[in-house]
């Protein structure tokens, strides 16, 4: 039996070490530095987590009008979600939409990333930036632009584009692509071309080389891309507002519409479910690939 050897991990380049190298310090000033760093980290973390904690807390309040301190706790708001058709159908639609858009986004983004990382052609940099654009343009602007585009296409061709499911999916693909291209390109940077050539010299054609060698090597990037694409599609509100058709309500839109009439903890309960779903997705992915290594 060969003795298993622990895989060599890349050396952690943590703050402590970096500071050590950049400016050696005395013990006391090092302690002060550590305290400052830790409190800054704690503050940032608290800043991010406080709203989430409050929402979660609120979801279990018994009374209808949120007020502190709570009168008691109950699960009635979670039951209320199940009774509300809009939330249930919105959840199903958002889930379907995110899964389909992510799949299409991967099918388009992975080859695009391969091409951008490998093939030298003029305008490569420009194209690379262009594919990241949907991430930079504000959602509202993207939504309006798509709306106008759909109107124009419908006028020009007579096809029922406006408010169609296909239009909605296409819009979501647009916000998935920047993630897939970016993350897959990042994972390709570390891949040695000669590994692929080795596979070819051993008898693997282009497809077999991609499937057996390239894909396993960029898998962390692909998985992370799928996760981030899914999350940004699932939670998208601004763009979707403009391109959903009548009767087709995604979960974020259902939440917004509900908020126009009522503020009771149902919304908090929906949010808790949404947070739980995304957290679960992250935890599952993290079991397969260390997301922190890619992003």
């Amino acid at each position, binding site marked *: 039996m*060969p003795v298993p050897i622990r*895989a060599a991990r890349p050396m952690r380049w943590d703050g402590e070490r970096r500071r050590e190298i950049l400016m050696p310090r005395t013990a006391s000033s090092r302690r002060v530095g550590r305290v400052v760093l830790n409190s800054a980290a704690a503050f940032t973390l608290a800043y991010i987590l406080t709203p989430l904690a409050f929402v979660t807390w609120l979801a279990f309040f018994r009374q209808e009008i949120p007020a502190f301190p709570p009168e008691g706790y109950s699960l009635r708001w979670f039951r209320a979600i199940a009774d509300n058709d809009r939330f249930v159908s919105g959840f199903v639609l958002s889930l379907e939409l995110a899964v389909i858009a992510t799949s299409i986004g991967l099918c388009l983004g992975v080859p695009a990333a391969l091409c951008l990382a490998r093939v030298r052609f003029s305008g490569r940099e420009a194209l690379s930036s262009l594919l990241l654009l949907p991430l930079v343009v504000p959602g509202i602007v993207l939504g309006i632009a798509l709306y106008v585009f759909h109107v124009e296409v419908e006028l020009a061709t007579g096809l029922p584009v406006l408010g169609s499911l296909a239009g909605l999916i296409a819009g979501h693909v647009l916000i998935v692509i920047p993630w897939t291209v970016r993350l897959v390109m990042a994972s390709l940077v570390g891949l040695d071309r000669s590994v692929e050539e080795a596979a070819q*010299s051993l008898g693997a054609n282009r497809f077999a080389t991609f499937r057996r060698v390239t894909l396993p090597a960029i898998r962390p990037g692909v998985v992370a891309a799928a996760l981030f694409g899914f999350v940004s599609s699932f939670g998208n509100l601004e763009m979707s507002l403009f391109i959903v058709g009548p009767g087709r309500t995604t979960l974020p839109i259902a939440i917004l519409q509900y908020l126009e009439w009522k503020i009771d903890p149902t919304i908090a309960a929906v949010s808790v479910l949404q947070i739980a779903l995304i957290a679960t997705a992250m935890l599952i992915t993290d079991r397969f690939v260390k997301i922190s290594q890619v992003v």
Partner: protein
Amino acid sequence: MARLEIDRVTKRYGDVHAVRDLTLDIADGEFVVLLGPSGCGKTTTLRVVAGFAEPTLGAVRLGGRDVTRLPPWKRNAGLVFQSYALFPHLTVARNVAFGLEMRKVEASEIKGRVADALRLVRLEHLGERLPRQLSGGQQQRVALARALAFRPDVLLLDEPLSNLDAKLRQEVRVEIRELQKRLGLTTVMVTHDQEEALTMADRLVVMHDGAVRQVGTQADLYERPGDRFVAGFVGRSTFIEGEIEAPGRFRSAGGLAIACKEAATGPATLALRPERIVLASDPQGSMDNNLAGVVEFVSYLGATIDMHVRISPKERVIVQVANQGSGRIPGVGGRIYVAWAAEGGIVFVGSGSD
């Protein structure tokens, strides 16, 4: 294994000639080394043979089969890369099995042949490890086993030893050479390291600027270099510019009269091997050339000592002296004679360029 013919291959990238009209016939079981400085076209030649670069002109035949237009995966050439290029996500055994799996060999047979290949490189106990759990030398041997497991027609080695440390490199040279002889592998290796080339090859091909400068055995290249470039690249030489005044008499630019074995006259370059020159305190009657000189620089290398001796205002020669431990080595400023036989100098007639 098979015979490899490279027939008048030219590879151009735009206006740049990476390889010019290269013809090479490599016999079944022969070990040929392509030697040259970086950018000389040796790696491009190997890539043409492997199928990663298509020649602009010419043909490549492997075992009589024209493979010029075949993609790499249809060539049956085993390739070992400088970086080893092992598949990081597969175990050693799966790495070695890859070529067999691609050829749809029966699973039961693969097992046996992987074990054979690993035994060949003495790594049979490490089949379940991942590449990153191995040392550089072990990874190199896995790469070799992987390239041999599917019984290729030719083995191609692209600077396979340059990532190993100096001591290990010397061991692996011998190991690869012995394996190659035992299995009768037709092998082409690319290297810029002349020592590596001299130790391993049956035949060497010295390349420069995309073209072959000389093909021959170690002795051919060392004793009878075809041109000034080869004389400088294989082994060391001191070059003295001048002209042949009359058959057998070389006049250096610094005015020295030197006896040589060359009948043609005209501008010429004289190349002197540092170990073919004798250092003496008095002129040596047995030598054709005896020149007085002053030691200007001494470099102590252990087994040998290099003496840089000024023999004229324009000329200085390097003399390699065996270190025999006695204190007879003159120091800097010492007045001595350098002597060599007429046939010890190699003359290249023609203007002084490469």
